[in-house]
């Protein structure tokens, strides 16, 4: 399915108010090089579409147990489906048969043209507040076609924004930046060891990318975002260190984001467990 004109997305969120100027449509792209232990969008991490099971929606009709791929399905005491994610070879069959969409596929391929059509449907709402499209993820720049999409969006005079983790191919980042009006760039920690422990990668290439971006595009509207995670970077020392690093870039805005646990339930739906669950978490105020 994947070809030169397609993107892998898992959601298109209209009427987004906190991801750039004005009223925006956010395109969530699938795939991320990071594995942040607090990630609230675990469905964004894997590149390929994957099975998701929303137990709350299951009505216990057992239709899924009757179809070809029944080997991975059993039913619990409440009569609801229990899914063995690893054994699920016929996922697609289940999701086709499930009447409530409890079993469904998270993620799909969409052509750039179709995506643009969806984004432009809200054009009336973009006008007055510089609204437009925001690419998010996952890491939107993991897919080469994201740059192509941004280029075409710009040709359509759309206001464009990105939310990036920064751990991306530098050349791609710098190419994309010419088609972007606003950039939200995550700096989670400047401590390489800690960063690797909590996200799987070090901070250094991310910091270097920010520097390169800043130098290549002076005056660009860049906002650095830091999710403040209890037990990871919520100490004064950690935050001071980030602040110090950012002092090199006087034009850059800095936003601290509150930690939330809205995404916890999704891990179970994907057959995974929440990485932070076993860790000492100070109560988030």
């Amino acid at each position, binding site marked *: 399915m994947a070809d030169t004109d397609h993107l892998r997305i898992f959601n298109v969120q209209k009427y987004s108010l906190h991801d750039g100027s*004005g009223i925006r449509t*956010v395109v969530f792209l699938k795939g991320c090089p990071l594995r942040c232990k607090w990630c609230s969008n675990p469905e964004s991490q894997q590149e390929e579409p994957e099975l998701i099971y929303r137990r709350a929606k299951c009505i216990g009709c057992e239709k899924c147990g009757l179809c070809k791929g029944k080997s991975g399905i059993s039913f619990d005491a409440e009569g609801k489906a229990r899914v063995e994610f690893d054994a699920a070879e016929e996922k697609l069959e289940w999701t086709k048969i499930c*009447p409530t969409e409890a079993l469904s596929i998270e993620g799909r391929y969409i052509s750039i043209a179709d995506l643009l059509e969806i984004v432009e*449907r809200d054009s009336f709402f973009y006008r007055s507040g510089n609204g437009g499209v925001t690419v998010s993820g996952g890491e939107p720049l993991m897919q080469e076609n994201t740059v192509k999409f941004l280029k075409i969006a710009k040709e359509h005079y759309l206001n464009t924004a990105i939310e990036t983790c920064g751990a991306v191919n530098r050349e791609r980042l710098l190419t994309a930046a010419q088609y972007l009006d606003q950039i939200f760039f995550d700096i989670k920690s400047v401590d390489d060891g800690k960063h690797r422990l909590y996200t799987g990668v070090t901070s250094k290439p991310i910091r270097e990318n920010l520097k390169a971006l800043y130098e290549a595009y002076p005056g660009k509207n860049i906002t650095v975002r830091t999710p403040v995670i209890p037990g990871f970077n919520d100490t004064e020392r950690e935050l001071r260190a980030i602040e110090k690093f950012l002092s090199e870039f006087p034009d850059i805005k800095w936003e601290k984001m509150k930690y939330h646990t809205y995404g916890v339930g999704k891990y179970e739906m994907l057959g995974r467990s929440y990485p932070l669950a076993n860790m000492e978490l100070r109560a988030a105020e």
Partner: protein
Amino acid sequence: MAGKVYSAQERRVLNKEKAGNGNRAALLIGNVRGIKPQIDIERGLYFTESFKETEGQPLIVRWAKALRKYAEKSTISIEDGQLIVGRAGKAGRYGILYPELDGDTLGINIEKLPGRSTSPFDISAEDADIVKREIETYWKGKTYHEELAKSLPEDTRKLTYNLDEESSSRFIVNETSSFRSSIQWVHDYEIVLQKGFNWIIKDSREKLESLDEDSAFDTMEKKPFLEALIITSEAVILWANRYADEAERLASEEHDPERKAELLEIARISRKVPGEPAESFYEAVKSQWFTQMFSRIEQKTGTIISNGRMDQYLYPFYKNDLEKGQITPDRAQELLECVWVEMAAFVDLYLSETGGAFNEGYAHWEAVTIGGQTPDGQDAANDLTYIILKSKRDFPLNYPDLAARVHLGSPKRYLYEVAETVKDGTGFPKIINDEEVIPLLLSKGAEFEEAYDYAVSGCAECRMPNRDTYTSPGAYINFAAALEMTLYNGRMLKYGDELLGLETGDPSDFESFDEFLEAYLKQQKNFIRHAFRQQYLINQLRARHFASPLGSSLSKLCRESFTDLHQEHIPGGIDLGYFEFIGYGTVIDSLSAIKKLVFEEKRFSISELIEALKNNFEGYEIIRHLLLNAPSYGNDDSYADEIGLRLDKEAGDFARKYGKEFDVHIDLRYVPFTSHVPFGKVVSATPNGRKAYTPLSDGSSASQGADLNGPTAILNSNFRTKNRSNNYRAARLLNIKLSPGCVEGPAGTEKLVQFIEGFRDLKLWHVQFNVINTETMRKAQENPEEYRDLLVRIAGYSAYFTELSKDLQDDLIARTEQFAI
């Protein structure tokens, strides 16, 4: 974790704060708030007495004389502390009787009223006895309602009424002309403020003197018309003077010097207006109030007589007072709030259960219009506009309804203050779009200055006070019933084997969705056909039953043509009527589900679907879930929206073709009041997964809980289902429930303004917001005592949540709450 965000109203309710900070209006409202209304029988009684005495006389004269009798005999009372006087009933909260409408069923309905589930009223045993003995007995056999019921052809009648004694509504092709004697209306108040009723008397006398005695037309038509205008004008002046007498009497007994001075000022002004022109803001407000109150006594206007463009016609008086240093913004606000309280005291009493169910929560919409454009197309916002908005935030009360006009040139301040007021969470103001309304009025024949100067009237309609002339109420059509009849070959489960619609065939024989759609469209058209037949009779019969000398005296065209406002045609007028499409989302989603699941994906057969529906989905949970997940209206999904466009086109084309015969714009509208609840009660389970006898979708909003793509998608769907090339269309009512978190802080206000601008640019007619947490409504259902002050937006109006029926409460809770992501 982010804390829960509450609207200003929710915070007030949670903290048990009182609105208004103990000011005058806040004290006065204590006599009204949460009090069960009483029936005051004087209006019904004196009208009946007068009508007994005037049989055989021209109708308009009889009406004028009845008003005169009321002005002479009615009880005059002034509430302590009130600055605005003129009321039609007892202390506290009251409703009055209009026996000329449906007085034949007074006895039956009066007994039901105190215990009715929707909008109950109290009446003393003594009064109930007078009603039955003296009022009902006179009107039996004479009312409009009875004549209409008798006159309808049999096949139209059975879609209109049940076969019971009181001809109660069947909620299929529902006529609304027998629970109100006019559609929503707005007067030209400016003429009263600027010239006064003495001018109308003088003008009418001059015209009387120049009549040609040889002309039968002059003597038989013009003369009674002019005499009626004189009698009515004298009556309203007399009535105001009786308030002056009472104020003087009270002043003579008053020990508090401050109140004594207030009473003497009330007396002075009541002797002056509305007979003479007003010269100050206070005089103008009082003149307007006497006029609208007397209009309420004259007749039952649908949703009550509207206030028109208050920020426009009162502004010259305010400005003049301000320049002379005779008024402050606070004083202006206080006077307006005194008027709001009097409006809240008067409750629009619907005797029939049909009327009550259409207008739950004691609904009335004496809409106050603000903003918009001046007659020469400039922005119209002024200081008074902002005072009225501020009053709605400072002193949230469900009356009057507030309508804010927006246009391309609306200043930022105006849009921001409107958004701030919406954020308060009480549902005010509703927003009406000049960019849609004005071109439509122009295309229907208005001049630019008339179209720019329109006033919102009632729920969502717009009137040009000196150009509009059509007052006949229109049909509310239950198209979900048409859908049900398509499934059951012209029948409905509730009514068994009775053939109500057309026999369009057994749907299990249909081989394609197009066949099903064609069958539905035949049923849809059949309903409209019967609605137009109703309308034909209604137009004729109303002219024989109702007259409006006061309303006519305030219409330039009526005065010029010596024609009563309720006559079928008035020379020079533009006749704008309508019929309502009820259950739009329900029908679209049902058709969409059938198309997708039965004919395209073949998940089940139409017979299996019908079995599931007949069983109200019991044992058919799988089918229900598939239906609920089918493409639905309100998601900017062309699959569903193309079906909506087709339904709109067919209904609009019918109106265009056959409205012409009436010489009336009988336009397609989507405004339900609260009727989507009672209409739902006759419709069994529908193929959109809706359970039997639950509410239908409201107005042009999505089915409850079906809109999952956010508020911009709701607006886009609305935009894409409208046939803009046909001007036989009018209001589309749209409800949006926003979570307070969506509009939090200054950034939230800004995004709300952007959303409103998007609405404006899409040229949608109407939008209104509930900014509330669904959880708050659930709590209010559990603990009504603690949430008595909670206002919610319903359908073109706001009402106290705890005064609504459980059904309507559930319906509001089921509307999708839109979160920002």
